């Protein structure tokens, strides 16, 4: 009677040990995978934030550069006469105005020109869609353009 009871106790002990070992292995694996996943997501998030910071820094520096260039060459604003150049279309006038005012950079201008064909929108619309200018700047640009159109009408 004692021998079967000993065997039963041994079997129960082995069962508990193996069950616990399997569970612990599972927990360790899951924790490891969760850590790896977290690390990867963290790295991605860090890169996104870093890129955003760098873009902001670059934008700031480009504006600073444009301001310096303007200061050196004398402040250049787009005059009505400038805008009235016959060979220049409306989008170009607006782009020149925005660049010279330092609202957008040359690179952003190129991007906008590329996107215009894809989005089938006008220059100001694409600028606003891409977040380069705010509504106030857009209104100013439109206003300048309208003034030019009126002056052309008078002529």
């Amino acid at each position, binding site marked *: *009677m004692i021998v*079967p009871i000993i*065997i*039963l106790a041994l*079997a*129960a002990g*082995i*069962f508990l040990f*193996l*069950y616990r070992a*399997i*569970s612990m*292995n*599972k927990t360790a*694996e*899951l924790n490891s*995978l969760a850590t*790896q*996943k977290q690390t*990867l*997501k963290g*790295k*991605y998030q860090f*890169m*996104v934030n*870093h*890129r955003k910071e*760098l*873009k902001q*820094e*670059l934008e700031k*520096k*480009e504006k*600073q*550069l444009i301001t*310096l*260039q303007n*200061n*050196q060459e004398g402040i250049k604003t787009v005059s009505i006469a400038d805008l009235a150049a016959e060979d220049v279309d409306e989008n170009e006038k607006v782009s020149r105005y925005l660049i010279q005012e330092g609202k957008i950079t040359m690179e952003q201008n190129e991007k906008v020109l590329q996107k215009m064909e894809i989005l089938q929108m006008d220059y100001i619309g694409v600028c606003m869609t891409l977040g380069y200018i705010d509504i106030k700047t857009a209104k100013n640009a439109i206003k300048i353009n309208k003034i030019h159109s009126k002056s052309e009408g008078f002529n």
Partner: protein
Amino acid sequence: MVDTSTLYLILAMAGFIIVAVLMIHHHNCSDLINRKRNEFKSISQQLTPRIEMLEQEIVDLKIQIDETDEQIDVLQQQTQS
């Protein structure tokens, strides 16, 4: 009282049940681990190219910032002199 052969029969049955329970538990755990591994693999496949692209963009941005800095320095020196 149960006789010896019946007791050993019960013991054998208990042994089978223990083995079955262990196998089912092991199978469940492996299944869960595999699912999580696949999940991680798919996330990794999605994020790795994006991270590489971001790294490249960051390098480009740093180069552009350095160039702009140099231009600003030159202009500032010209303004001062």
